[in-house]
């Protein structure tokens, strides 16, 4: 049925073609090849106005009218060049965004670099097809930073969406724009389930083997200097406040509890729901200082603790 909408079809084809001829890159310098220009509706209105002014000048034989018309036309022509030059020669590069949870927005930063000796005004950037424009100016031989955000549509490793940069400067008669497909990718973890049930008391077999009942509370903890990856809970904050050094509790007791998280433990049937719950449990286990492992798909992560481990688990969940 798409032939019924030949215009939309053509438009989509054109957009696809444009995108495909555009290499993926995290740094882009705009030039004649990747900057496009088209008159806006206001520009067309100006053209009509110019025609009417010209007709009036001819009909009333007004030489001053000719002068006005031609000066205005000259200005519009210069404005076209100025508009194009506003983007041409601009260099942009992008900082890859941090991984995020599904349903949250991924934020990333774009640096605009202007090597020209004059400022560039009225640049606006947006994630394509969102219609949210972020305006900025870039000073002469300076750079500016634009922060954009988008909601990743799915879980897993994926490319950033296509970006659009445009300007209407100086007269609004021409729209000059460039599209940019960043090479950077963003990793999207599953959304952690809200109000997830507590950690399962029985993990898989490994959890059983390590008897979960060895809680000898009241025994004095051994202390050692903070190591990367130690959980926030294990830090002795009182001591840290006094001495200014971070000191962790030796988990002689807590370490005894070990969990290996698996999709079956969630008792859910849908994959995404399972992943959501596992994600929530990973976060919970890390928070509680429980040693946890993850067995999902091809990944088999041995029980451990710490932020690096947590990240590894989350990555496994994201790519599952």
């Amino acid at each position, binding site marked *: 049925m798409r032939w019924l909408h030949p215009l939309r079809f053509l438009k989509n084809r054109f957009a696809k073609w444009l995108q495909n001829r555009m290499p993926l890159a995290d740094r882009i310098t705009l030039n004649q090849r990747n900057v496009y220009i088209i008159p806006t509706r206001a520009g067309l209105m100006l053209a009509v106005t110019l025609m009417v002014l010209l007709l009036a000048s001819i009909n009333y034989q007004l030489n*001053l009218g*000719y002068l006005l018309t031609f000066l205005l036309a*000259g200005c519009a022509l*210069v404005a076209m060049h100025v508009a194009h030059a506003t983007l041409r020669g601009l260099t942009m*590069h992008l900082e890859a965004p941090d991984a995020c949870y599904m349903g949250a927005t991924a934020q990333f930063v774009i640096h605009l670099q202007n090597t020209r000796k004059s400022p560039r005004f009225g640049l606006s950037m947006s994630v394509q097809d969102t219609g949210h424009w972020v305006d900025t100016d870039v000073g002469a031989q300076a750079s500016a930073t634009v922060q954009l955000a988008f909601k990743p549509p799915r879980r897993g490793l994926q490319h950033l969406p296509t970006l659009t940069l445009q300007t209407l400067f100086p007269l609004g008669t021409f729209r000059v724009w460039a599209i940019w497909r960043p090479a950077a990718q963003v990793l999207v973890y599953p959304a952690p389930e809200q109000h997830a049930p507590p950690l399962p008391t029985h993990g898989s077999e490994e959890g059983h083997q390590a008897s979960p009942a060895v809680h000898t509370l009241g025994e004095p903890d051994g202390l050692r200097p903070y190591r990367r990856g130690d959980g926030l809970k294990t830090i002795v904050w009182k001591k840290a406040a006094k001495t200014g050094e971070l000191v962790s509790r030796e988990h002689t007791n807590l370490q005894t509890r070990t969990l290996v998280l698996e999709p079956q433990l969630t008792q859910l049937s849908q994959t995404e729901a399972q992943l959501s719950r596992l994600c929530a449990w990973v976060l919970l286990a890390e928070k509680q200082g429980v040693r946890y492992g993850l067995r999902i798909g091809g990944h088999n992560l041995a029980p451990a603790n710490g932020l690096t481990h947590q990240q590894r688990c989350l990555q496994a969940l994201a790519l599952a």
Partner: protein
Amino acid sequence: MWRALTRLPRDGRDTLFLLAVITWVALPLIQQVPLWCSLMGAAVILWRGSLAWRALPLPGTAWRLGLLALAVAATWMSYRTLLGRDAGVTLVVVLLTLKTLELRARRDAFVVFFLSFFLMLTQFFYSQSLLTATAMLLALWGLLTALVNAHMPVGKPPLWQAARMAGQMTLLGAPIMLVLFMLFPRLAPLWGLPGDAMTGRSGLSASMSVGNIASLALDDSVAMRLRFTGQQPEPTQMYFRGPVLTQFDGKRWTAMPWPDADLHPMPTQLVVQGEPLNYQITLEPNQQPWLLTLDATPQPPKVPGSTPRMTHDLQWVLTRPVTELLRYEATSYTRYLADVDAPRTQLRPNLRLPLGFNPRTQAWAQELQQSHPDPAARVQAVLQHLRTGDYLYTLEPGLYGRDSADEFWFDRKLGFCEHIAAAFVIVMRASGIPARVVTGYQGGERNTLDNFWTVRQSDAHAWAEVWLAGRGWVRVDPTAAVAPGRTGSLQRLQTPRGALTSALLGSVSPAFALNMRAAWDAVNNRWNQWVLNYTQQRQLDLLKNLGFESPGWEDLLYILWSIVVVASLASAAWSAWERQRQDPWLRLLVRARKAFAHAKLQLPPQSTPRQLIELWRQHPSLQARYPQLRTWLLQLEALRYSQPKPQQAASFKQQCHALGRQLKRMGR
């Protein structure tokens, strides 16, 4: 006040600026639109300004629609139509000011801009003077500034930044304007000019009722400019012949209707003597068909695009009224004999007087006829009477009644040139001498800067011609008898100065004021010659100078097209060149790849510095030849892919340059 203005939020400041520009655009039209329109426009703009100043919300739709309906109704009341030039201008002024009441979105701003451009064009219906042009150039600058400012969405950029941008664009657009102006073919009007296109300009007319020329004497505007090539005339010879008024109905003098040119191809017998005067006249549009020339002009003046013809009373006329600035060349002889052998029938209309008017003058004429049987002597006697009879030349002779000649000769003895000339002709006719009133201009002002003569409406004059046997038509200026200075040394009655002019010029010495006026006139004249008078003829002349044999408008288009093609080729070449030098970094990479090509190594297409380093590592021959290449490639990579520091942006090119030099040294 200024402080408060700078502290105003962006929106308020921009609105106030735009309102100021709109006011500037619409202000010159105050003379053209009805009073209610000016008042309403001013009120609306003040209202909108105060809303912007206090950051109050805009009025609702009901207000705008109500005011619009009111304005349309008032326009209808004023003109009884909504179409046509004057009603249209009034409506556009109203629409423009009302549009400011909903000036929010960018699109509204655009509507304001386009309406403003129309208003700017309508100004030129009324005046195309240098002053108007300057004012409109400023208006264009202001509008562009506001438009540029509207497209600087970030923060509150100072207005001068937008103004500078707009100024630059105007300057860069000026050459394009010049080329288009010179080469765009001047077409004839596409459809008929509306009837009201050219009203409101004064000048001579085909009829004269007493008081016409006196009102012209107060009009300081320019009627025409001229330049003599070669011999300059005496001031007393500067009589520019306009409408000749033969018919008199007791109140009004009117020109005779002239018969078809085919029937009377050259009705006047004209014999010229002496040295000719060659000159060029630039005539301001006056809605009349007369071509003003010096007495007498035997050959048709050279008018581009049409052939004037002579009527039976020595006037040169065009087939259509002069509606635009017109330039023509003419050759005149101040010594001439006209219609020496005119048959009695042809002179008869010049003897007719309406019955029952001016009885005392008629009686006096009878006496004169008896005491001076020789017509020439009779003319001299009447002139002598004017000189010695305590007659006074004045701009304000008061109102004349039914028998105007009687009143002039016997009661008031006051008059302006038209009273004197008319009364003189009545006496002549009553005493049997064929006579007629001639109107036109007498004298002029020579600008010592550029040698152009300026003839103003205040130089409008009326004189008499009498027909004497053996001499034909002879010019007699009875005003000269009353006030010799009027024609001899071109003295003019001082027109009363307005309060403003007095205030401005009160302390300035008259000589300085005159010099200033001369300079201003010279500039204005240049403007007229070069801009307003740039017609199709001048365009074709330009082409002739460029070497075209018989230029036509197709040649204009051809040149215009060639310029466009050359300009596009130049810009294409420039952009290719710019693309080439676009990225110094990529060029460095290409140069580095050449080093690998010398070593006969296959390179992956579009290899990165990192890939090149890998290759370099695998090939000892390359390592031996370019030991430094690895560091260099790492530097190259760092230059592009490391975090840029803002202050480094300027030196990116320089760093590339430095790397290029390093590579050169390595190659040796």
